[in-house]
């Protein structure tokens, strides 16, 4: 209700102005109708960025934000800023749309012309308008203060964690006792003391956890007590930033005696107060980070703040369906509150905003607004004041937004660069110095700010073509790459009785919807106008009524809801894990069992789950062994079922046991298992029946089955024959047997999926094991597949290390059960095909028995109807899952992209990495359904098509050669790299299983990881300088330049690091300077480096520190630990290093230059 309070924080100027007149007067805060003005403003916050920039410099004492990330976002922001400054230019383009199609600027190949092009003076007629435009864009940057900006922020490494944690735990207890007591009498408005009600809206934001040291004193101030207490009592909602600020604003209004003091405080310490609050935010998010479980699952306030979680739960259950806040609101308003605000009100408001764009800084300009306001509802005279404050926000209302969007069709600087024609035959240095970033969609800065992170949600074309015809013309695939369950540093979690969704298409409310007025919002996917439910009027973060556009759902493109029972088929299942282990002779030989048992034993307590977690074990060779782990037994009991043709479960309730109760027995079993089968001579493997048994065992609950298999299944259902002909491994003709030999595994997987069982497969085989068939069990039950070729615990230490590291991550990573994911998109777009591991249940619904944070999905889209009537296209992915703690949750990601009608714009927005990944997925499909050579041809044709389409449609250059837009300049390299991947290569000896595994990886790996696998990053290490280095905490992370993957870039006197995603190669040249070898590797000279060195020693030298910092930094943003291999120039391992040099000619594949020539030939045909 006290909207002004919120406003105040947004601009310190208005704050001091407003708090003074308001001091001690409660009425302004009572009046909800003010919100009429806000709600018609579109939600996207332009509030985010400015404080980000400001808060960082001011908070170093509190926290050191991760500079790597900070710098990224900062630069992103500065880009926004830049664009907004250039708004007039965009406008100009808007007015003369043919301008950017006109060949003249592009004809001149010198880059200068592009630099000058935008500065060609805007048409004078627009000048004034442009100015306004600029003005309207400026305010966000001029004013400090915002909260949501912080929410989007990466937390710093949690240094203050312990402190934070303590506070976090203390607070609820400290607070609950007085919560209801003193609040009521002192504060007549009742709504704050009735906070239990408010907690039903609780935002379980992970940033929310606690207040900061800097803020605490404010809260401790005596007159504020009731506020402090009531607020944390609701536990769920409050962000520290809010914690800090509102008291000081509310105090004057309520506590007569307290007001003066606090006002004083406010006025004098205003700045510090707000900064403190920022500090608080970053702080607390830091705390959550350290709080989160070691698997790196950050989310989950479940993990991070159990106290809060519970608070949220209890309150929501206790309040039930009644919504006390609106009630109290009604009572306090005495029915005065106009249910439907007079629309004239809004109209005037809008008109007013047209009149005075620059109003953010000058209040006097508001005569129109308040006047009309007073007219429409004269009974509320005091809130005229607060309405001023509404106006004074740098808030883009509808008209502004549309104006901003109108300017979108122009070509900003970045786009011009992206469109620069690049002649591939002439330019040799195509790689940017740093790893490629996703292109920024050409949106208004406000939308850009709230848009979904490209790591989570990415589109191949960041400007969506208007029609399918245009898309066809561009010859680029349209699709999404999704990583929906990614480990997030920062995730607002919302508990609410009603989850607001569009009534027609069921879209979740998101930052890109439009609020038409106080009570209605327009869906951005189907354009239906919906009502805003009463509950949604209340903002749990600011604890104010009537600001639906400021709720976290509308401020964040990625949110998580705690779902009510409407979203449940059955009570949420407990976490259930079944381990199916191969114990045949082959498995004993490979020796994985011991390492598995050790790893599980170590991580037993870190398995995600709660007190209901259930585990079970099942081993098999030619029979199936069950283990009775019922609590009370003195030792585990093994039950053998030898009838594999008709598998039955020997005992129903004691095979899957509660982990907590039977922990000792589980540990017993894990210690004795490796020895139990050490003498096994049985060579057959009954994988099929074992899986059937696992299915039967798990079907009552659902859960995760982890299968460890070491050979071809030979017995019972699902038995397979070897299909690989080793002589055909390097055949350059088609590769056979990429598809499954039997549908047994697929059918079983579908059954599993139906019972919410996900099957993960670990294949540790040295022989052919027909992964193409077996992998179906994971593919269709949304599992993951791991493959360790020639695994042996002694002979292959590299694989063993990888296995151990993967296993640790696998066991401890987050998991979601019984999940479904629906992808919705703006009317006119439709989903064509899905790629990944799942079962497609309907055109837009994926059924995921398990969802894990490491798997990604790709979606091909098509444009069915023209998108001409909208300037924005949105995509929403909603993942409904049961967390390991038994909570039903919905994670919603929304991506918003501009729609364009010019081919050049489509090219300018093309995301070469995403295009490559999507094409890779399509090629895999093609090679399975059709043939490998077909798939390879299709990839080459993709390049040919792009070049010829660009040549004939966009570039009017008459120069010969291969010309592509700069945004796509790396496309041929990436396609060539794809063709040289294990999955798609021909001519080079590739084992069938490895090929199939590579294909599975393509389908499930997230984009970043996939790109590193396809086109590894190559750096030179021996001459790194600190120039441009990142400074993270105390360490300096050098940023060496990326090098092309060609042997000519590698010299003998250097040391080079290749980052292949799952593995690092450190190649040391023969003449590498000894200082590097000594300082980094710890050996006196080149000759003394051992041939298979696989770690970097921790030496005290600067160079060693730099190298290790770089490695750690590279390692930081990937889920699975990568191993490192030091490759000497003269060892045989050298070949593995050089096979990644994709631009070079290999025994069977062409070099980059030859590839380009081939493309050129194809074009001239």
């Amino acid at each position, binding site marked *: 209700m006290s909207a002004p309070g919120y406003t105040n924080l947004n601009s310190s100027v208005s704050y001091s102005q407003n708090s003074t007149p308001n001091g001690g007067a409660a009425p302004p805060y009572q009046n909800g109708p003010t919100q009429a003005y806000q709600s018609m403003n579109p939600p996207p916050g332009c509030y985010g960025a400015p404080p980000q920039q400001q808060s960082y410099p001011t908070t170093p004492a509190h926290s050191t934000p991760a500079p790597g990330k900070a710098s990224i976002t900062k630069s992103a922001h500065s880009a926004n800023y830049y664009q907004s400054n250039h708004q007039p230019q965009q406008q100009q383009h808007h007015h003369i749309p043919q301008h950017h199609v006109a060949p003249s600027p592009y004809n001149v190949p010198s880059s200068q012309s592009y630099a000058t092009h935008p500065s060609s003076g805007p048409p004078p007629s627009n000048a004034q308008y442009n100015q306004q435009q600029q003005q309207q864009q400026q305010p966000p940057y001029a004013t400090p203060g915002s909260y949501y900006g912080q929410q989007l922020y990466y937390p710093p490494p949690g240094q203050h964690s312990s402190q934070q944690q303590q506070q976090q735990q203390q607070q609820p207890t400290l607070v609950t006792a007085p919560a209801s007591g003193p609040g009521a009498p002192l504060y007549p408005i009742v709504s704050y003391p009735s906070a239990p009600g408010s907690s039903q809206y609780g935002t379980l934001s992970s940033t929310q956890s606690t207040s900061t040291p800097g803020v605490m004193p404010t809260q401790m101030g005596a007159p504020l007590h009731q506020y402090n207490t009531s607020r944390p009592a609701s536990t769920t909602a409050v962000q520290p930033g809010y914690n800090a600020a509102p008291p000081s604003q509310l105090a004057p209004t309520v506590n007569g005696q307290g007001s003066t003091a606090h006002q004083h405080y406010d006025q004098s310490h205003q700045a510090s107060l707000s900064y403190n609050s920022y500090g608080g935010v970053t702080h607390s998010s830091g705390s959550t980070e350290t709080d989160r479980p070691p698997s790196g699952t950050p989310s989950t306030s479940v993990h991070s703040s159990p106290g809060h979680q519970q608070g949220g739960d209890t309150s929501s259950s206790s309040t039930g369906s009644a919504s006390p806040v609106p009630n109290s609101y009604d009572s306090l308003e005495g029915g005065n509150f106009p249910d439907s605000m007079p629309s004239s009100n809004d109209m005037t408001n809008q008109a007013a905003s047209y009149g005075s764009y620059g109003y953010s800084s000058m209040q006097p300009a508001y005569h129109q607004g308040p006047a009309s306001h007073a007219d429409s509802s004269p009974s509320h005279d005091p809130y005229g004041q607060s309405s001023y404050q509404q106006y004074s926000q740098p808030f883009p209302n509808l008209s502004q937004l549309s104006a901003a969007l109108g300017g979108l069709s122009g070509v900003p600087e970045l786009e011009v660069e992206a469109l620069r024609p690049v002649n591939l035959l002439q330019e040799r240095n195509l790689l940017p110095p740093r790893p490629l970033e996703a292109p920024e969609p050409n949106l208004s800065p406000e939308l850009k700010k709230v848009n979904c992170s490209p790591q989570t949600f990415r589109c191949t074309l960041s400007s969506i073509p208007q029609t399918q015809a245009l898309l066809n013309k561009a010859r680029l695939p349209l699709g999404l790459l999704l990583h929906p369950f990614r480990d997030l540093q920062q995730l607002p979690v919302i508990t609410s009785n009603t989850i607001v969704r569009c009534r027609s298409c069921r879209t979740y409310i998101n930052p890109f919807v439009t609020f038409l007025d106080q009570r209605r919002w327009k869906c951005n996917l189907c354009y239906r106008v919906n009502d805003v439910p009463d509950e949604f009027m209340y903002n749990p973060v600011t604890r104010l009524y009537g600001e639906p556009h400021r709720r976290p759902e509308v401020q964040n493109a990625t949110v998580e809801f705690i779902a009510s029972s409407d979203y449940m088929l059955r009570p949420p299942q407990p976490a259930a894990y079944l381990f199916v282990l191969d114990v045949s002779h082959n498995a004993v030989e490979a020796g994985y069992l011991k390492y598995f048992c050790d790893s599980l034993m170590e991580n037993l307590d870190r398995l995600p789950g709660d007190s209901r977690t259930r585990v079970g074990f099942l081993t098999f060779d030619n029979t199936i062994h069950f283990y009775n782990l019922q609590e009370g037994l003195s030792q585990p009991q093994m039950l053998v079922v030898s009838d594999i043709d008709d598998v039955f479960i020997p005992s129903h309730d004691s095979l899957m046991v509660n982990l907590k109760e039977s922990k000792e027995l589980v540990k017993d079993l894990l210690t004795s298992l490796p020895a139990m089968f050490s003498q096994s001579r049985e060579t057959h493997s009954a994988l099929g029946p074992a899986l059937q048994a696992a299915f039967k065992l798990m079907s009552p609950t659902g859960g995760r089955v982890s299968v460890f298999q070491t050979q071809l299944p030979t017995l019972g259902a699902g038995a397979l024959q070897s299909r690989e002909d080793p002589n055909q491994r390097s055949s350059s003709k088609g590769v056979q047997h990429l598809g499954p030999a039997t*549908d047994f595994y697929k059918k079983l997987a579908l059954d599993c999926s139906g019972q919410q069982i996900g099957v993960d497969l670990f294949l540790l085989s040295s022989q052919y094991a027909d992964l193409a068939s077996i992998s179906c069990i994971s593919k269709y039950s949304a599992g993951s597949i791991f493959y360790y070729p020639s695994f042996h615990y002694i002979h292959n230490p590299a694989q063993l290390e990888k296995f151990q590291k993967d296993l640790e991550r696998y066991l401890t990573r987050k998991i979601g059960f019984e999940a479904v994911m629906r992808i919705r998109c703006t009317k006119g777009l439709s989903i064509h095909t899905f790629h990944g591991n799942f079962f497609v249940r*309907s055109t837009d619904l994926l059924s995921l028995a398990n969802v894990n944070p490491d798997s990604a999905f790709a979606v091909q889209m098509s444009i069915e109807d023209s998108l001409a009537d909208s300037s924005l296209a949105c995509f929403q992915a909603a993942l*409904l899952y049961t967390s390991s703690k038994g909570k039903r949750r919905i994670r919603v990601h929304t991506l918003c992209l501009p729609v364009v009608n010019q081919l050049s714009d489509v090219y300018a927005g093309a995301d070469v990495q995403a295009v490559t990944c999507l094409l890779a997925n399509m090629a895999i499909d093609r090679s399975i359904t059709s043939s490998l050579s077909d798939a390879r041809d299709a990839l080459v044709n993709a390049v040919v098509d792009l070049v010829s389409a660009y040549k004939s449609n966009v570039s009017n250059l008459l120069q010969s050669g291969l010309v592509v837009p700069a945004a796509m300049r790396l496309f041929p390299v990436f396609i060539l790299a794809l063709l040289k991947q294990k999955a798609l290569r021909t001519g080079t000896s590739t084992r069938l299983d490895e090929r199939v595994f590579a294909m599975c990886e393509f389908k499930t790996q997230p984009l970043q990881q996939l790109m590193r696998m396809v086109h590894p990053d190559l750096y030179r290490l021996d001459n790194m300088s600190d120039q441009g280095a990142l400074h993270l905490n105390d360490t300096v992370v050098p940023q060496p330049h990326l090098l092309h993957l060609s042997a000519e870039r590698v010299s003998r006197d250097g040391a080079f690091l290749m980052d292949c995603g799952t593995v690092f190669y450190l190649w040391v040249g023969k003449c590498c300077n000894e200082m590097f070898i000594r300082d980094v590797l710890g050996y006196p000279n080149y000759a003394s480096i051992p041939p298979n060195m696989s770690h970097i020693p921790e030496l005290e030298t600067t160079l060693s520190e730099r190298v290790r910092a770089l490695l750690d930094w590279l390692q930081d943003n990937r889920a699975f630990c990568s191993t490192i291999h030091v490759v000497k120039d003269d060892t045989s391992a050298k070949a593995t290093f050089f096979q990644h040099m994709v631009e070079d000619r290999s025994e069977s594949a062409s070099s980059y230059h030859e590839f380009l020539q081939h493309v050129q030939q194809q074009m001239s045909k």
Partner: protein
Amino acid sequence: MAFTFAAFCYMLALLLTAALIFFAIWHIIAFDELKTDYKNPIDQCNTLNPTVEKVKKIKRVKIALKLVLPEYLIHFFFCVMFFCAAEWLTLCLNLPLLAYHVWRYMSRPVMSCPGLYDPTTIMNADILAFCQKEGWCKLAFYLLSFFYYLYGMIYVLVSS
């Protein structure tokens, strides 16, 4: 005017084609339902909770997908009948479809049970569109051949 074997064949074909038309319609409806499922403004929850209507629909789709083999067999059956009746022209008209059926069944995905449609790939837009087109084409073909058989039957009856 005599009731020959050929006339009997035509009559049988007439009846069976009526059945095939029915199958084809069902086929089209089933795929259309698969395709337009998402356009239903039902709650995501309802898609999880199979309501009665939903179950019915799923059953209908399943039945339609199972009708593939009977359809092929019926068509094959009266092709054989026409062969026996030495109705070469009619047989020639049916041969392309027969060949198509054989090819279609040969190139079906790996499956252990009879059937044509793999539930894991059926939702692919290309395959869906293909199946729908296939349904429409077949419907047209069966309708035309229905009238042709009617004509053939009368012709045979009159001429002999």
